[in-house]
């Protein structure tokens, strides 16, 4: 009964949001909409927030995909779901619940992985992923996006250092971030990378507020952790693993966490993930890394994997709260084939974003755009 009630309420929200996204994605992955439609979408999405994650906005049954690490798919493709336990999985849509066939296997750490196939007939657009297990229902909003095709040329929005919860300006950090997300929604980008310092100091309430605003984004959003997000395990509880990869058509993206003193701590497990992901992205037309921070002395093991032995084609990050200079155009390493170019985008808490043009000719960072007032 409880489950039915949820499904009914979620049906309404999901319908408006999903319909909108499906429409926009059919237009060529360039969501572009009027403020009227935006209001509908925002309202619908906000209505659904109480159904997503737990009371603190943290992950419950479904670990990934989620709204900071969604699955981008073509109809008929498969995707992995990592969960705390086996569950009935489905996609939420305007036509109701679309059950997913899942093959479950155990993972180390008492987790389960399901390989799910999206049925061919599922309409394009964005979906919530829903899990039902032992009387509990869990929903990750904006977790699965179905495209009809991945274009050769597209735009990526880069947002970094949102510092939700800070009092650095006259306007609240939440209001500034909302304007930033509104601008991303109107940018024509295929998806957004949000590279750390999501919060001011990693408090659970700051993550909750960040996620609420994040879920007003109509594009897929990929996040990673920054030094300001590191309080207990707040980031991991909100978004899951600290390193991951995804494909957008021919291009591979690798997101990872940079600790205060390390690109990835040599002693821990993350460098191995980065090596495995970098190797998996070898066939990519462009292999693009995104993280919060880079300094040349921040641990060598991950740098060997990402910038020396098999250099990424581009590396996007923030943290500096300024643009990189003429003298800071690449990482210092020559790399086996080329030095990896870098682009540093200034902080979104100061009201700015940057768009990248990705195409057959290369990766072209656009100019920094001011999209929000701070006073």
């Amino acid at each position, binding site marked *: 009964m409880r489950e039915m009630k949820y499904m009914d309420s979620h049906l309404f929200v999901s319908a408006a949001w999903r319909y909108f996204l499906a429409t926009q994605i059919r237009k060529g992955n360039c969501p572009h909409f009027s403020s009227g439609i935006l209001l509908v979408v925002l309202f619908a999405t906000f209505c659904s927030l109480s159904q997503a994650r737990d009371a603190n906005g943290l992950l419950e049954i479904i670990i990934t995909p989620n709204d900071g690490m969604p699955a981008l798919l073509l109809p008929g493709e498969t995707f992995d779901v990592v969960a705390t336990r086996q569950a009935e999985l489905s996609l939420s849509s305007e036509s109701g619940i679309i059950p997913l066939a899942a093959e479950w296997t155990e993972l*180390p*750490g008492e987790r389960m992985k399901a390989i799910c196939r999206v049925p061919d007939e599922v309409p394009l657009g964005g979906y919530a992923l829903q899990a039902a297990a032992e009387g509990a229902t869990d929903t990750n909003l904006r977790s699965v996006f179905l495209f009809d095709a991945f274009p050769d040329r597209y735009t990526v929005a880069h947002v970094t250092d949102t510092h939700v919860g800070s009092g650095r300006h006259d306007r609240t950090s939440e209001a500034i971030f909302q304007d930033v997300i509104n601008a991303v929604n109107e940018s024509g980008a295929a998806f957004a990378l949000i590279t750390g310092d999501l919060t001011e100091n990693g408090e659970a309430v700051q993550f909750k507020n960040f996620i609420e605003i994040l879920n007003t984004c109509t594009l897929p959003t990929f996040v990673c952790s920054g030094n300001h997000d590191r309080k207990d395990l707040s980031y991991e509880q909100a978004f899951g693993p600290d390193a991951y990869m995804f494909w957008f058509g021919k291009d591979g993206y690798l997101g990872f966490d940079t600790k205060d003193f390390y690109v990835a701590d040599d002693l*821990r497990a993350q460098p191995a993930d980065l090596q495995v992901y970098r*190797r998996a992205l070898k066939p990519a037309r462009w292999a693009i890394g995104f993280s919060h921070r880079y300094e040349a*002395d921040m641990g060598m093991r991950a740098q060997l994997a990402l910038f020396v032995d098999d250099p990424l084609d581009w590396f996007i990050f923030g943290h500096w709260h300024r643009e990189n200079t003429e003298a800071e155009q690449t990482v210092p390493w020559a790399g086996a084939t080329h030095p990896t170019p870098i682009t540093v985008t200034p902080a979104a808490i100061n009201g700015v974003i940057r768009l990248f043009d990705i195409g057959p000719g290369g990766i072209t960072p656009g100019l920094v755009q001011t999209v929000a007032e701070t006073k």
Partner: protein
Amino acid sequence: MGFIFTIALAVVVAPEGQIAFLAATEQEDQQVCVLNLPGGEITPIGAGQRDGEPAWSPDGAWIAYITQAPESGTGVRLVRPDGASERILKHAEEWVHGPPVWSPDGTKLAYTTGGGLDQRVMVYDLDSDTEERWGTDTQSLLRPAWNGDAQIIAVGTVGEPGALSTDLFWVTKTTANPAIELQASTGTYVEWLPKPLPEEGAVAYESNDGGDREIFVFAMKRGAMDVSNHRAADWNPVWSPSGEWIAFESFRGGRRGVYRVNPVQVRVSPIAAAEDHDNWAPAWSPDGQWLAYVSNRDGRPRLYATNADEDETIAITQHELNDYAPAWRPETK
């Protein structure tokens, strides 16, 4: 009867000695601990302030590690294995980078100081309580390792930012010379983690010479030779106490696993490798029978030990923290 036999067998095959390691939930509370084997008792002995990986003195009397300095920055601390006393070294510079490396005679520690890639090798004389820069004023040096008591081998950066690579350098108090004889071939390769075996005149190290990261061994009579030779990355060479084997990490099984190779026969065999989890940071027992390492096979990084010859593996830590960087206490004579 069968039960008794099982217990007796377990006692017989269990490794003995002490292992220093790091335990933590997060990087911020990383602390040096000592594990007593075979009992399994764990004693926290480090400062617990982002402690770095522990290094035993050659006589097993001290453990050195990098941690937050009393005022600011980082510094080296020495602590007794039972935590009974400690010694805080005084550094000229604010930021000290590890891990600290003991000279074979146990009188000196080498580490680096500085910022970015502009680092220099510093040597601390524990008898005179003085710190001294080794090498030259112009050469940036990283990851020192002792080759006898009077010479260090270190990684030196070469070239300008945007075109940077590394070479290995022989370093003394006043010199830093490229170890040209060690490079498999010339080129803009990045060598890393040199591990000398002075008694054999050999050095193991990593290089991406050949296309991906491999373990090379330089030996006087043979020159430099790729001993791991696989299209997947191979990392972190660690000599066995006898010099017969090199343990290393490799991705040839898909995920990161621990392997060993005899550098003469160049035959690689797995110690701990799996498709669904990682095994890393190998550390040899003093008798060379066991390899301790970190494994996240149950989801949390914990210490395991494998007897390579007996194909026996046991979990040696099972507490509710994450464990890293095992280092076996040397045999005390």
